[in-house]
């Protein structure tokens, strides 16, 4: 009995050990190294909190965090607003046999490189790009609009990506929803709008929040899209981190800024934690 008991306890540990080892090696240890680095001076290596104080005392650094939060919030809200009806149409209006194909087509842009997709948007939004040419040809504008190298361009590039992500999480949630909820609401006299607002929407909140959390995490930590589409006309946090490394190799300050960014992501996680719990069967 005792041998069987030991084996019974050992098996789960044996199964999770690779994942734990992976996490330890590629997250915990690098994180400790980064934390240690953030507490040392760039010149001399003495222990210091100066790298953190710089963030709070330099308005340009602080501005980078504000920009990151503004861009992330905008992207998340727009993505949800666009993704929800899209997911709903896929789940409710598209015939069952076409849903798989429709979903595959919806996520097709995922198959292209992130960098290539960003540069493609740059060409679309450029002064001589598709949009400006179309508007000019139609006589709607006399001079090309500045679309590329703006926050609008950054948000557009992000939204294109995250709408797909949110569509997947919301679609999965909608498909899990039993039709009996809606029938029950109808039996009790609720119209379609009331049913959606008081039954369907609350029950699909977990799908929205999971997608929103992933959007926040990926968006706030992204360097490529703002770098390519934003034109460096304002900096977000990942760009500020990269700036410290390039020429000066100031890894302590880069580490401190990264940890501050991680703290913000942790706050986002805590805000969404209620909906991010894994349900036990």
């Amino acid at each position: 009995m005792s041998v069987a008991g030991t084996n019974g306890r050992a098996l789960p540990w044996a199964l999770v050990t690779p994942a734990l080892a992976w996490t330890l090696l590629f997250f915990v240890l690098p994180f400790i190294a980064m934390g240690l680095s953030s507490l040392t001076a760039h010149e001399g290596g003495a222990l210091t909190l100066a790298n953190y104080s710089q963030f709070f005392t330099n308005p340009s650094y602080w501005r980078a965090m504000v920009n990151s939060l503004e861009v992330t919030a905008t992207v998340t809200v727009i993505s949800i607003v666009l993704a929800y009806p899209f997911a709903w149409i896929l789940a409710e209006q598209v015939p069952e046999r076409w849903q798989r194909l429709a979903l595959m087509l919806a996520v097709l842009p995922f198959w292209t490189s992130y960098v290539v997709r960003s540069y493609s948007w740059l060409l679309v939004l450029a002064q001589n790009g598709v949009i400006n040419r179309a508007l000019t040809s139609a006589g709607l504008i006399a001079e090309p609009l500045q679309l590329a190298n703006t926050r609008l361009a950054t948000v557009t590039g992000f939204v294109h990506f995250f709408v797909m992500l949110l569509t997947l999480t919301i679609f999965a949630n909608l498909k899990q929803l039993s039709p009996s909820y809606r029938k029950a609401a109808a039996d009790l006299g609720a119209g379609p709008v009331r049913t959606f607002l008081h039954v369907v929407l609350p029950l699909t909140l977990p799908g929205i929040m999971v997608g929103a959390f992933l959007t926040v995490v990926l968006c706030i930590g992204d360097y490529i899209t703002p770098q390519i589409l934003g034109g460096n006309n304002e900096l977000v946090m990942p760009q500020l981190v990269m700036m410290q490394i390039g020429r000066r190799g100031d890894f302590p300050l880069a580490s401190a800024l990264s940890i501050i960014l991680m703290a913000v992501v942790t706050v986002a996680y805590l805000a969404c934690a209620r909906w991010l719990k894994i349900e036990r069967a």
Partner: protein
Amino acid sequence: MTVNVRNPLSTLRSGLGAAFAAVALLAAGGAQAADLNALIWCDHSDPALLQPFEEANNVKVNVKEFEGTGAGLAIVDQSQPGDWDVMVIDSIDVPRGIEKGLFEPLPEDKLPFADLFPEVTMDKSTVVDGKRYGITEKFGYNTIGFNKSKVDPADMQSLASLTSDKYKGKIAIYDYYLPVIGMAALAIGKKTADLTEADLPALKAELLKMKANAKLVGEVTASQTALATGEVDILVGGGEWVTAGLAKENPALDFSIPKEGAVLWSQSLAMFKDSKNKDMALKFIQYILSPEGQARLATSACYWGMPSNKKATLTDEQKKILRFDEQPGFLARAQAYPAPNADLDKKMQDMWTEMLQAQ
């Protein structure tokens, strides 16, 4: 008896560093002891440059690209001594490698110093205590790159055009603070070599005026793309390194050395003190500095630039694109990159950050 006890966190950090360096070296091409391991900029990864050397010496050159001296030195910090043989580095940053004890003095008698443009040997940076640690292999100018079919070339003879209303919204700024701060210094009549902290407010004001006129501030690819696609007509900090490589596709792209001057960029080759393959490292440096190697490096696929060796075997067309024959006049008016100490460097970068964030 003395017992050395290491801080466990330091041990962890150095252990992780060594692991990452090993991965970097593997990524550089599965290095073997007989290979030559080179930390390089993208212009050295052109097969047209490396293959002739590899075939002639029966050696494999493993390259690892990096951007920025800080990133390059970080790779070295995390490597084992002897992992790397040669390094490409900003000439003004050679002292940073010397201070870290990384570089081996180069034998001047075995290198073609007499054939180099004397203005670009950068002895202040590359020679310490009478020993030479770096040799300039390529140079050029951070100046005004422009599309001559869209702007008046006469305007491009003055840095004042960069802040005039005439070109508002038609300008991109190259996103590297040192050369553009150098250009701002020239615009306000300061010498790049004499910049101090007291000059920062005036430099910042000039940078903000440039930013107010600019559509974007972009790294190499972004700024090059913006000029090539017509998104902008002028690139502050541009030069032959942007326009020459695109000359065939877009002959309207050109650069000027304005009356106030331009900022001279220069890249050097250095050999690592702990290289296990010093003979081959020297052969590589000799090859890159040879007339043939210089011509290939100058016209590398990644970016063009002036060869430091006057005898580079460039074709007449290539010389024309690089404006080879005009170099004496250009060099006479060019000033070196600002070479701030660590403290001023940090303040300059913070000033650049403020400029980027300005609306």
